[in-house]
């Protein structure tokens, strides 16, 4: 289906803090077709998590959605009443959070987590819920599901819990799963397993994903679309192959250069880094936010902000090199 399931436009999110007001998301837009895996990539603090939270209106208390539209099918999620949004959360759009160890009620067993998630949206009996849970746990390749559902979260490892989180996110058969740094808290092997799982679910059940990560390797592994964030703004967006192979924005290029390569002998050379730090969102530089660290910065970059432009089909960038 080439139908759009989610369309985000002009999204603007800010946070109030002691040091001032931070614009975490500044005029970001993107769309999701059924079956897409959109990888939102950026360094810590660039606003990518805020996008995810804003979509379902679950921002922290000091955060505010200043502007934007989030069209899910025909509803603007930013405007529909709370009870309708609650129906959508957990049923049509699900979340997977970063730290699986903290995402469960510590004094409730797994079975009850499932029962609760199911009964929030459907009428189910306990038996039915149990069977669905076991079925789902099998699908995410969690061993000994009947044993697991009776256990408590503290009895299991991060990898297992993350699989359970995925199962919980899937149990109501959502169309979109938003995964916010799903592998950051896990070791590399488990990480790989989880990503493979997500890929499989995407292909077999046509679930769309929004995958948020600061690890370009993770993004590269399973996304088909990439959105690169810097200092709250989208600086590059497009099909994965375009963004990775025909990289446009200096920041993205620098980032890809930083990925350790297996064929390089690092005893002779050094790992690449990008000099400098991402700016404080409360105090952004004038002009293009990347100008302090950009090797291609021209005088206009310090005066005006570049807009997103479609440089080739399905490949957008905001940089004065291309306009």
């Amino acid at each position: 289906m080439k139908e759009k399931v989610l369309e985000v436009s002009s999204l603007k999110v800010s946070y109030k803090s002691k040091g001032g007001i931070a614009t975490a998301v500044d005029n970001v837009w993107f769309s999701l077709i059924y079956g897409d895996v959109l990888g939102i990539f950026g360094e810590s603090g660039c606003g990518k998590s805020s996008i995810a939270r804003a979509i379902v209106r679950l921002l922290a208390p000091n955060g505010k959605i200043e502007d934007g539209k989030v069209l899910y099918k025909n509803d603007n999620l930013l405007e529909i009443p709370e009870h309708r949004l609650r129906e959508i959360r957990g049923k049509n759009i699900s979340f997977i959070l970063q730290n699986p160890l903290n995402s469960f009620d510590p004094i409730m067993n797994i079975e009850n987590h499932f029962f609760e998630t199911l009964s929030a949206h459907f009428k189910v009996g306990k038996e039915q819920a149990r069977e669905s849970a076991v079925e789902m746990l099998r699908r995410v390749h969690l061993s000994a599901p009947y044993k697991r559902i009776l256990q408590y979260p503290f009895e299991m490892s991060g990898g297992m819990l993350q699989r359970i989180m995925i199962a919980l996110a899937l149990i109501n058969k959502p169309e979109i799963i938003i995964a916010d740094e799903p592998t950051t808290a896990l070791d590399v092997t488990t990480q790989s397993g989880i990503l493979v799982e997500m890929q499989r679910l995407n292909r077999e059940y046509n679930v769309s994903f929004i995958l948020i990560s600061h690890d370009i390797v993770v993004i590269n592994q399973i996304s088909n679309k990439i959105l690169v964030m810097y200092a709250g703004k989208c600086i590059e967006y497009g099909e994965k192959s375009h963004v990775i192979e025909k990289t446009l924005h200096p920041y993205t290029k620098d980032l890809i250069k930083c990925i350790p390569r297996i064929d390089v002998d690092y005893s002779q050379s050094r790992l690449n880094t990008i000099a400098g730090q991402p700016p404080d969102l409360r105090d952004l530089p004038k002009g293009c936010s990347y100008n302090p660290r950009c090797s291609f910065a021209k005088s206009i970059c310090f005066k005006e902000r570049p807009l997103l432009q479609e440089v080739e089909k399905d490949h957008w960038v905001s940089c004065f090199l291309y306009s």
Partner: protein
Amino acid sequence: MTKYIFKRILYGIVTIFIVLTIAFLILHIIPGDPVKALTGIFLTEEAYQRMRETFGLNDPLMIQYLNYIKGIVTGHLGHSLRQKQPVTILLIQYLPNTIKLVAFTLLIAVVSSILLGVASYKKKGTFIDRIILFFTMTFQSLPNFWLGVIFILFFAVELKILPPLGSKGFKTIIMPSFALALGLIPVLVRFIRYKIGEIMMEEFVLSLRSRGIRENIIIYKHVLKNITIPLITIISQQLGNLLAGAFIIERVFNYKGIGFLGIMAATDRDYPLLQGIVVFVAIIFISINIITDIFYTFIDPRVKYTR
């Protein structure tokens, strides 16, 4: 870990011993003669000596002390001078009432604190929140015995719907419990409100919300369940105050519990009875402290599942 439990119990036993010894010493450096104080001077020399013997007052202090300790361990706490009954029997008679009182007080306090605490959290910062805080704290600043008197004035004398005194029947427990509870509720309400706020910030609450679980269910089911243990901890910390309050309140309402017995013993200068009560209360109190301490160490590592 078992080492800690062991140390704690040992520490507790030592504390109990110290308290018992202090109690013994206080009651045995009495200026004056307990027998004479009670029976007056109209006693034959023979009878007087006999009484002294019965109460073991002629033995050297050390022997009396050892008998005292022996008595405590075996449950013989002496004989009340005024009531003419063994102290242990009296304790057994009066204790149930106090237990009922404390239990009912805790029930009232916990239920209302939860309701008020949740309401206060939900309406954080608004007028209702401030009113709740204001009123609960006002009641706490009032002297509880006076509050009890006002209750009697209002409910017994003016409205005539509750009995002013006594300990028979359910109605007699209502006013004393409320008077006691009003001292406990503000502490609990503030604590609950704070803890709810804390827990709502935790990540699993975000996770629950993201699955579409209703806010009310989150508060009443998840957050409150997670509060239970800290709540128990704070209640056991307050038990000492509660007990002290019960002593006075029982007197206000002539409610025949241990507190009433204790005050009566003090006013009558009934040394054995008072000693028995002091010993009993001290042991109970210190034991509760130890049990709570140990309980807490058990619960904490289990609930926190980070390895």
